[in-house]
């Protein structure tokens, strides 16, 4: 915080740049989200071996399956950044394609998660089987929730792109949605390692 006193941040005066401010706000919010997921991950680390009578991580995880869905989510960052690129160039048509592709990949990921959850429940792991189960479902479920919100925002922006309501200083813009989306992806990178790969 100390170094923020550098004069390069001196107020720009009355006419502040709205989209810059939004980006800054989004970064601050994401900084806060780091602590949110940090707490969930910490809970998981504390409970990952407390499996009680229920199945353990190693017994039920299907690493190849999760690797594929992780890969899909990772690639959605690529489509996202390409959409962002088109948005910056004001190529609305391409932008819509990439945004919808991103939303699509996100939905595939979510479908994978739903499938995974039902599998686990069948194999006897629910939220109330063991602290491991609670921590696992709440952590990954929370991440899933973030993905779902991201998908909704992507769809909304894409639709706004169709109807021409999307302006550069609109309340939601592709820049912001992009930051959020990448962040959700980044969180999954950590979850994939901490939750899945460490259990092998």
């Amino acid at each position, binding site marked *: 915080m100390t170094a923020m006193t550098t004069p390069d941040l001196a107020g720009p005066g009355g006419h502040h740049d709205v989209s810059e401010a939004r980006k800054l706000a989004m970064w601050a919010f994401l900084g806060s989200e780091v602590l949110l997921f940090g707490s969930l991950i910490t809970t998981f680390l504390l409970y990952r*071996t407390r499996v009680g009578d229920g199945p353990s991580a190693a017994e039920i995880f299907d690493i190849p399956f999760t690797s594929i869905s992780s890969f899909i989510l990772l690639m959605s960052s690529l489509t996202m950044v390409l959409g962002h690129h088109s948005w910056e160039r004001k190529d609305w048509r391409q932008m819509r394609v990439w945004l919808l592709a991103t939303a699509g990949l996100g939905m595939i990921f979510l479908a994978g998660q739903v499938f995974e959850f039902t599998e686990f429940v069948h194999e006897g792991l629910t939220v109330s089987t063991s602290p491991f189960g609670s921590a696992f479902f709440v952590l990954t479920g929370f991440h899933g929730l973030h993905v779902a919100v991201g998908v909704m925002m992507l769809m909304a922006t894409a639709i706004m792109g169709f109807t021409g309501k999307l302006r550069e200083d609109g309340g939601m813009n592709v820049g912001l949605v992009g930051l959020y989306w990448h962040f959700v992806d980044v969180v999954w990178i950590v979850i994939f390692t901490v939750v899945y790969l460490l259990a092998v």
Partner: protein
Amino acid sequence: MTEAAHPPHPTPRDYWLIAVVLAVITAAEVAVAYIGVDVVKVPLLFAMAFAKFVIVVGWYMHLRYEKKAYRRLFYLGLIAAPILFGVVLFSFGVLIGS
């Protein structure tokens, strides 16, 4: 408010390249998880996850190209989290135990 040191923004070609790198690391991660020796496995996995993290945040989220203020906002959270949670886990004996 021009920060002269800004490197040029990546192009779509760069984005695709980065994606390939990310894919390769992911493959390596899975491989290490299965065949790695226990002593090196955990640090290696964390190193690779960290690399992916940095790549996505730096290039896809353009943090490399942003103003210092943005970076600091995010870094604050990023630095606080491992320290605080490290202490919590330590007090539960998790870090020493496993």
